[in-house]
């Protein structure tokens, strides 16, 4: 297309030409040449730093030198460029008119008409098809959830209700060593697992149990638990009933198990009942006994689900 054709199809607008002396185009700085010199210096420093970064990386110097030179180089170059933009480029102020985003009432009417009237043509005339498609889309939406959600994992079932502790489970530490009558002294604490589960992450997560020697003689933590803590060895689930953190913090003289995450405090002498903090339930207690070799074993598993609460959890602890 030639120039002449272009001119006839577009509207002509008077075009003011500005000169460089226009203050809108002028430098914001009072001493532009001095500012230019400073910015030039900053750029030179930035280049030196960037080159330094190259050298530092190539020579594998300390991370802080690699990072320091890279950061300084980037920062200085950016600083110089921004200063150039702020002090030496046209600041204006310039004005631009906001064009009204909204269309005219006629345009709006036309759009609404298209939506309402044309869809009425469809819906009024082909109700059956519209309804069927809507039904199909809805069913697809529901069914699509299956691969998106259901395939991800199993339903919880009873997986949250039980641990691997059973009748006669041997208590072992993280190295597989069993516990004898004389292993812990009063005030001692260790983490134990059922034998063969001390290495698996899933076992560690749910089966972890703290074993504390509170005294030398049998300890009764609650009515009905007379045999649960022989020779003062008492075992509680280590999974906090608040949010599942391991309750590994034991204060010997206060006889308190404190959860390190949100500071729930459990009294070890009376069945790990929470004395303070957000935990809602006591830590489940594992009943123990000494077998004929004098090794510590579990009488049964826990009498309830361990760890934090969930909707299907049915047992409530009564003390």
């Amino acid at each position, binding site marked *: 297309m030639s*120039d002449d054709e*272009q001119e006839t199809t577009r509207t002509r*607008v008077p*075009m*003011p*030409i500005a*000169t460089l002396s226009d203050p809108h*185009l002028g430098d914001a700085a009072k001493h532009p040449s001095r500012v230019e010199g400073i910015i030039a210096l900053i750029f030179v420093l930035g280049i030196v730093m960037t080159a330094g970064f190259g050298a530092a990386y190539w020579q594998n110097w300390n*991370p802080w030198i*690699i*990072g320091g030179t*890279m950061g300084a180089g*980037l*920062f200085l*170059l*950016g600083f110089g*460029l*921004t200063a150039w*933009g702020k002090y030496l480029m*046209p*600041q*204006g*102020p*310039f*004005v*631009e008119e*906001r064009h009204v*985003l909204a269309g005219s009432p006629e345009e709006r009417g036309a759009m609404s008409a298209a939506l309402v009237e044309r869809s009425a043509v469809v819906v009024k005339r082909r109700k059956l098809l519209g309804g069927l498609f809507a039904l199909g889309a809805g069913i697809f939406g529901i069914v699509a959830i299956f691969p998106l959600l*259901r395939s*991800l*994992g*199993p*339903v*919880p079932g009873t*997986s*949250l209700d039980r641990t691997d502790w059973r009748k006669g489970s041997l208590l072992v530490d*993280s190295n597989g060593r069993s516990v004898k009558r004389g292993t812990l002294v009063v005030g001692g604490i260790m983490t134990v*697992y059922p034998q063969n589960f001390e290495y698996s992450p*899933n076992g560690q*997560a*749910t089966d972890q149990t703290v074993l504390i020697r509170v005294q030398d003689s049998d300890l009764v933590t609650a009515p009905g638990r007379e045999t649960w803590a022989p020779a003062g060895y008492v075992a509680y689930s280590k999974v906090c009933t*608040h*949010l*599942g*953190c*391991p309750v*590994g913090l034991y204060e010997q003289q206060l006889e308190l198990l404190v959860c390190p*995450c*949100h*500071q729930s405090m459990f009294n070890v002498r009376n069945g790990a009942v929470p004395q*303070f*903090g*957000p935990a809602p*339930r006591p830590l489940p207690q594992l009943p123990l006994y000494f077998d004929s070799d004098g090794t510590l074993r579990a009488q049964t598993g826990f009498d309830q689900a361990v*760890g*934090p609460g*969930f*909707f*299907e*959890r049915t047992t409530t602890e009564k003390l």
Partner: protein
Amino acid sequence: MGPYGRVGQVVDELDDRLGIAKGGRVFLDKIFPDHWSFMLGEIALYSFVVLIATGIFLALYFVPSTNQVIYHGTYKPLRGQVVSEAYESTVNISFAVRGGLLVRQMHHWAADIFVGSIVVHMARVFFTGAFRKPRETNWLIGTTMLILAILEGFIGYSLPDDLISGTGLRIGYSIAESIPFVGSYLTSFLWGGTFPGNVIIERFYLIHVFIIPLAIAGLLAAHLGLLVRQKHTQFKGEGRTETNVVGSPMFPTFMAKTTGFLFMVAGATALLGAFAQINPIWQFGSYDPSKISYAVQPDWYMGWLDGALRIMPSWEFAGWGHTVPLEVFLPAVVFPGLIFTIALLWPALEHRITGDNELHNLLDRPRDRPKRTAAGAALFALLFVLFAASSTDVLANYFHLSLNFVLWAFRVLTFVVPIVVAFVTYGICREMQGVQGIGKRKRAVIVYRSAEGEYSTVTAAPRPDDEHEELDPEPVPVRIDIEPLANGPQAANAESSPTGARRVTR
């Protein structure tokens, strides 16, 4: 070759194919208001750029796998220990990959700055009322990006599978589990079974490097697109109206300043990554569900939830064969859900309360809207108290107070402080509204005493630097005379430009 040389040729060729000339010129002329607080969103934008760049680097070396391996690397206290591959690859990045530790730390610092700058930017938008019509959609997009950024950060620092972030995951699992009806199903699906399972790192990796960045990028494009289309808001002032924008032009000024700022954000992140250690996972060790450290904290943007969880009383509802752990569900699910819902609905709420349906392109000064400012200040005060509450143990240790006392104090402060802050803020705003010339430097007053002993005052002349002449805003010039004609003002003639350019029409 035309009068604009090779550049003109390129413009012509591109215009023939893409039609960029007309829109491009408009784009180059775009005006950006210059107030400093309008650049806070750019901190977020550029830290996102840094996150993408550093993230690509990290993704080349990270192994998202929970398979157990034995560490044989350079860090002695880990040698021979059984760790997950994810953890091993992260320690590898920190010690064996050249620049790896720097990039890892840059990535983490940039993430903290990203969320922080979004909050600061959101606060600016809130307190100046920029979310009002026609910008409610942008507010929704922005709030959604905040939620995604927080999630992204949590998932990101959980990827190395170290002791501290693993504990955070255990807590996240328990929080999800606490949701009535669906909690245990949700966690079983997401974790592929009970905690810890062996798929969560792989799944989180996919979410962290693909799904959420894609979502944020898309929302970001929409956010910026709306900004370009609706144009930026501006404060009231000389020559500024509801129907114009006053400021500096896109090209060259704004482009220079914003590109420079990108370099500076990247540079600042690199300096932080070089000199300040963050998340030293080799000290923490690999995650073991039976190990725990005291004084474990989530990253700062999750701190408010940690504080809420700590101070919540231990209310658990158990009955009719079911349990609803309210001490988890309320502070960690209901409370943030409420906060974010109110945030999303705020433009609609304010519209309902004020009945204001006008288009607003001019911003409020916070003091001009005392109720909104007080509400926002109260929310920030609440969040701040909760942040502080997540450090109860550190505070008790530092000030030698009983931990129990500190916890009770925070239970009280959570309610008292926001209310007090709301009233005080409201009062300050009302006062500031009533004060003449507030924010402007006061002029000195000269006191005269007449012979009779009468005192009178005269305002002194303004100091030389206090007076500042602002030019009237003008449209961006279409053409600039780089070399004016020897014969003076006649050059200002549209028909004959000294450079002999062909006529351009709008």
